[in-house]
């Protein structure tokens, strides 16, 4: 029995491809239950548990099939009246044309949106305070627009942008300043960066 457990565990982990185990899984009820539990354990160990843990949907599917009413013959509808049957295709075609037109419009809009400039990533922002670097800074993530009249919202965006850009700049310069400190410490223990130019309040 322990051997079987171990085989099953290896099978769940993808370390064994024992086909006889598959048939054993089908036949053996307790092994089948174990199979479900192992996956449950695996999910919870990896923090991959769904928010609403409903582990076995097979029963729900079975119930749904059972409660499904049997359909014997198609109902007669108004579409089966001869005149209507010949009119409906025209309406359908018109509808298809409209759909085709709207799809084309959507494609045009989609293409326009796809052709927006690519947002370049985290290495984009340049330190503003570094000497010797000319050139503008590009907005970080919230975009500025000049044509729109300035409102509180625009002002707020600008402020938020300035903070975000500064945060990025500080991150890049941090690597530099830490490096200088390491050199100043010259072989002393690494990883205590509050010795240098910064003041620790404690």
């Amino acid at each position: 029995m322990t051997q079987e457990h171990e085989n099953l565990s290896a099978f769940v982990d993808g370390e064994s491809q024992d086909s006889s185990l598959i048939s054993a899984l089908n036949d053996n009820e307790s092994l089948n239950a174990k199979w479900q539990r192992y996956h449950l354990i695996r999910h919870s160990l990896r923090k991959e548990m769904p928010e609403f843990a409903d582990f076995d949907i097979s029963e729900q599917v079975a119930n749904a099939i059972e409660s499904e009413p049997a359909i014997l013959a198609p109902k007669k509808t108004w579409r089966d009246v001869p005149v209507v049957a010949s009119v409906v295709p025209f309406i359908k075609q018109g509808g298809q044309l409209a759909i085709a037109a709207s799809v084309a419009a959507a494609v045009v809009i989609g293409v326009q949106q796809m052709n927006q400039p690519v947002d370049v990533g985290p290495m984009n922002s340049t330190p503003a305070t570094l000497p010797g670097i000319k050139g503008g800074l590009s907005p970080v993530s919230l975009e500025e627009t000049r044509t729109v009249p300035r409102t509180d919202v625009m002002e707020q965006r600008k402020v938020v942008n300035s903070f975000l850009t500064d945060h990025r700049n500080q991150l890049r310069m941090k690597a530099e300043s830490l490096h200088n400190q390491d050199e100043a410490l010259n072989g002393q223990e690494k990883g205590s960066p509050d010795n240098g130019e910064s003041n620790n309040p404690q």
Partner: protein
Amino acid sequence: MSQTIHNKFINNKRRVSLRVIALLHVIFAFLSTQAFAQGLDVQSGDVSNAKPTSQLSARAWLTKMSEAVRELNYHISFVVLKPGSEAQPYIWRHGISETGVEMEHLSMLNGPGQEVLRMGDQVSYFEPNVPAYSMRSDVINGPLPETLLSAPETLLGAYDFVLVGRNRISGRSAQQIRVVSTDGSRFGYVLWLDESTGLPLKLNMVDLKGHLLEQIQVTALQVTATPHEHFSRIETSKLPQVIEFNPNKSLEATWNLAFMPIGMEIVKRDRHRLPYTGQWVDYVMLSDGLVNVSVYLHEKNGAVADQDLLLRSESNTFLTRNHGSISVTVIGKVPAQTANAIASSITVANQ
């Protein structure tokens, strides 16, 4: 046929009625199953009869990773996924020159492209719109969490490393490791390492509930005996000049933070002007080596509404809180609760 199916339904129902008991059994099965006990090798690493690769503890795996990242010659393609932006593909090359100097090259493949080149302790940035420049640094400040990859031992105080198990990533077998902040105040990471080389294959940044925030996925990995030929084409004498940059003088601490997450400390404190607006701010950077948080103390912006502000920019939390005429702004990749705790713990000395 229908008879057997019917039987199965009945069996299913019986099993469902036992589901609660089965759930209780989960714990027992978990303890009694030997194979899982081996996979559960959390931080101890003393299992002697397992396969050689699965013997290592989480910490040993990270040591193996940092050695591999610093010492191997490799060529890695990876993709960065962030909320609110498109996938960003990169190439990451690393090599050791004949003279023993570390060479590292990071290149963004979409758009106008950005190249970062590190030769030893000199990092050169080549970007569109600005002249190329170099800085003195041991690490490239880019999409990769360099501290986690090259010096994970410095994070031990602030984070716990937990070995989770094995998995298949990028077509290779991988070890999965969780990195969790000890006080639950920062986002967590899930790291998958290549079993044979120790190089990273995938990195997820997850929030406190385990939802994915950012992801780095390796798509191709090559380890070679010699450095990539790309490095031989670099003319080191033609690299841009290093900018010597004098850090601002340290400030008298007129305000203090009462709360800092475990493992975080103040790595920088100065007063400077913001880009675009030119506003003066008192600035403090907190860091645990992996996550950096910027704290700004500034006068309240007249044009901006009075209420507090909480935004999310990619996975950065942006929080502004008003204390009378002074506002505090906190930015960083931390949960909003942590940003709030930092912002509300500020005390001003000279007032």
